[in-house]
């Protein structure tokens, strides 16, 4: 296994995990809250990073090919843990401050879909393991916040 295909496998795995977290978040929202009036807002929260992601892909259209970088497991795990606890701290502050953006309707869904589209961009253009580690840590932490804090 050369490092190129290894980084491809790592990015794909991170993408799959983030997708699974995303689907679970949606199911949690729709089934447990039964908030059918909130569906357009939910859709808007899902769609908010999509035009920006398409614009960035438009700007980066020329750049292609993954970086040939050795994944270095210990550094990756450190990055993932740092991202996990950082997102957890931000979410806890938002939960304590009790503002509108930290409510269950908007905040975590916007963050989760931003993480998802950033992960898609990473998979298409960069394929760098550190970005994938940071993004999957943030996604896991967001799911934990939704399950435990709200």
């Amino acid at each position, binding site marked *: 296994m050369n490092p190129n295909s290894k980084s491809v496998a790592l990015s794909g795995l991170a993408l799959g995990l983030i997708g699974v977290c995303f689907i679970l978040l949606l199911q949690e929202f729709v089934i447990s809250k039964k908030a059918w009036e909130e569906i*357009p*807002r939910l*859709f*808007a*929260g899902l*769609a*908010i990073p*999509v*035009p*920006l992601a*398409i*614009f960035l*892909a*438009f*700007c980066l*259209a*020329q*750049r*292609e090919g993954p970086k040939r970088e050795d994944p270095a497991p210990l550094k990756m795990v450190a990055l993932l843990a740092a991202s996990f606890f950082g997102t957890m701290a931000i979410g806890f502050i938002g939960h304590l401050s009790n503002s509108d953006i930290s409510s269950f309707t*908007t905040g975590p869904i*916007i963050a989760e879909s931003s993480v998802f589209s950033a992960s898609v961009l990473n998979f*298409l253009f960069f394929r760098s393991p550190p970005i994938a580690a940071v993004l999957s840590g943030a996604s896991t932490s967001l799911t934990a916040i939704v399950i435990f804090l709200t």
Partner: protein
Amino acid sequence: MKRTKLFKLQGWVSILLILIATLNFALSAEGEAEFLKIAIAPFGAISLLLFAFFVYNKRRENLNDDDTYGTGKVISGIGILLVTGLVVVLLTTFLGDVTNTLDRIIFSFAILIASVFFVFEKLRDFRSMALLTGVGEGITVLMIFFR
């Protein structure tokens, strides 16, 4: 990734988002409106669109895959994006009466859809890509935070 395909995708995504925003605003509209007014509301946008297509009948297309966009150009594009999103949000929130009743909602959003469709159909370059992105972002921010 072809730039032409991405531009087309962005245009349809923006139009779809404006349609969803119209649906959202129309479902939560308060005032009553006559049926005749609702039926006549989108025709202002249609006549404007026909006039614009009559005047500008050539497509300007400048989307080469070989160009590389530098940092300054990307930052200027993001500036256009922010200004457009801000204009959309300000026009539809602080003008107040624009989104009271159903016919006014249909009129204003039809004009927005018509201008977006004109830009999408006739002017295809980097700046109009930034403008379409700004409209999409602005309309989603409007839908989440201001209604």
